[in-house]
């Protein structure tokens, strides 16, 4: 086989395991092959196929930013066969990585605009990549706002990292929880859409990047549309069963789009044309 075999994973070592919330850990992975380690690049919003040899592969969005090379971070929920097998591994163990796949966020197009990142629950996993990309290239963007809502404080991903951003002058970091029964939450309380009253959106210079559970999209989209944000300035990261990642196996096809090739970032306009999308 003289060309590159698109199905071969590249070996990567688990260099860090940071527990997040229950059944969610952030895995830091470093490619064993030095040139892979040095040259692996990606766009925020792309995903990789994670292989646990002998168990299988699963698509996982990248949570780290390409501005911080060397280690790829995947925030993985323990939920299926592959992720359970990953949770049985320890630091220094090897996994396989193929990718990066998917379109990712159109970061060049976003430059020079205001950015509104809206995340709900686990939707922060792919948006963290865009967040850090933006912060590390801060001069290329105008106002940057993050709205992130979790059910309760104990279910917020990257909680301490995000809380540490509350004081940052160049980011409007709005964190909220639906409920705070213990009375410990230092920020806003209420569902994520309740944050919209606190901000102004200039529809001609703003892009929104949204990721969250299906139920969240409806309400967030409503808020964005009410503020006249155009349908192709609303970007969403969507989940499907992206088995091969390269547009062959068919599992992630929606209408005339493959989530793995044409997505996982879709605009709201795409969603209108692909009724199954959200």
């Amino acid at each position, binding site marked *: 086989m003289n060309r590159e075999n698109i199905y*071969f994973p590249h070996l990567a070592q688990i260099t860090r395991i940071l527990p997040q919330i229950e059944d969610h850990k952030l895995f830091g992975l470093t490619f064993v092959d030095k040139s892979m380690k040095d040259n692996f690049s990606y766009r925020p919003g792309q995903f990789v196929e994670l292989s646990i040899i002998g168990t299988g592969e699963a698509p996982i969005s990248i949570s780290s930013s390409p501005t911080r090379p060397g280690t790829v971070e995947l925030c993985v929920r323990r939920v299926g066969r592959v992720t359970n097998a990953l949770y049985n591994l320890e630091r220094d163990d090897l996994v396989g990585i193929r990718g990066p796949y998917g379109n990712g966020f159109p970061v060049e197009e976003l430059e020079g605009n205001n950015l509104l990142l809206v995340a709900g629950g686990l939707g922060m996993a792919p948006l963290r990549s865009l967040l850090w990309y933006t912060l590390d290239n801060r001069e290329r963007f105008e106002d940057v706002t993050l709205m992130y809502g979790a059910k309760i404080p104990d279910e917020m991903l990257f909680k301490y990292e995000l809380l540490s951003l509350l004081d940052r002058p160049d980011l409007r970091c709005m964190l909220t929880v639906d409920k705070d029964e213990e009375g410990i939450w230092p920020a806003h309380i209420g569902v994520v859409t309740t944050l919209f009253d606190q901000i102004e959106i200039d529809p001609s210079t703003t892009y929104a990047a949204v990721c969250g559970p299906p139920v969240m999209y409806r309400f967030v989209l409503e808020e964005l549309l009410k503020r006249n944000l155009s349908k192709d300035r609303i970007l969403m990261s969507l989940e499907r069963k992206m*088995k091969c990642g390269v547009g062959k196996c068919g599992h992630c096809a929606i209408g005339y789009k493959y989530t793995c090739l044409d997505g996982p970032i879709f605009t709201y306009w795409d969603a209108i044309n692909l009724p199954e999308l959200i």
Partner: protein
Amino acid sequence: MKMVKLQKKNLNAFLAGLEKFGDLHGPVRRDTNDFAFQKVDAPEQIAHDCLRTILPPKKYFTKPVDTMFTFSEAEGYRAPDKDLHTKIILFGVHPCDIHGIKILDLVFGGQYRDEYYFARRRNAIVVGLDCMPDEYCFCRSTGTDFTEDGFDLFLSDIGSSYLVRVGTSLGDDIVLETSTLFQEIGDTDRRAYKRRSAQRINSFEVEIHLEDLPEIMDLEYESRIWQELGDKCLSCGTCSMVCPTCYCYDVVDQLNLDAKSGSRLRRWDSCLFKDYALVAGGHNFRADRGSRIKNRYFHKQRGFVAQFGRPSCVGCGRCIVSCPAAISLVDVLTKLRSRGNE
């Protein structure tokens, strides 16, 4: 295009002389009306009256079960070597199936090229053969009743001879190998070919209109038809398996008994299977049969048009013949078009 003539009585001698080009495969009779492409020891085993094999030629290029790689601690990942380099001559491929292969070339090529598929494609010589449609064929409607490429040689019946179109340089080498068996074509042959062509065009019993089908399908996205079909469909996936252009696959890792080495396999899958769009965590994007069968029709007739400029259906009729629930694609498309006009 270079054309020569081969007398029918010389066909077997021609095929027998091709040993050095690869193993000969062709349609073989399995039962009264069942045929399958398989390796033959002698050209006489080939059933020349085969209109439709059970499985299309895709089985040679994307195998029902296929090793993607083996893995072991000692050797890491290794691409499978066997059966990627076996040379074969695939005889008796009808135009619809040649179009099917051309469509798979698009899918397995592109930005991410599947080298397993193309290794097998490179090693297969395709000898096409024309045919007369039966009541299930609608390749004329799908524009796949004729092909001008995708074959090394193509044989058209002109009575006591075949008119042989030479499609590739390799095809020419094959002709030259047994050149004594071939003759130049003459005026009678030209006339015979045109007669046959006209006769063939007039033999189609089924016609569907595909021109603006994507728009019609969008209009009927919420149609009751999909639920009605879902109620009939058994989710058996037979239509996917027999389809020349269905390429979906599932991936599984298989461990050896040492629990350290094994292989990653892919196997044919169907979007009609219940767990096709099931993701970890238990959410199924297409839990009901109606949504699955709708997805199948939309991908073939609508999605593929947007992606590659034509529907991926080649009109071979296999899905209609094979469906145990008697769902007919022709009926479905006709109904989609006429609904509301009854």
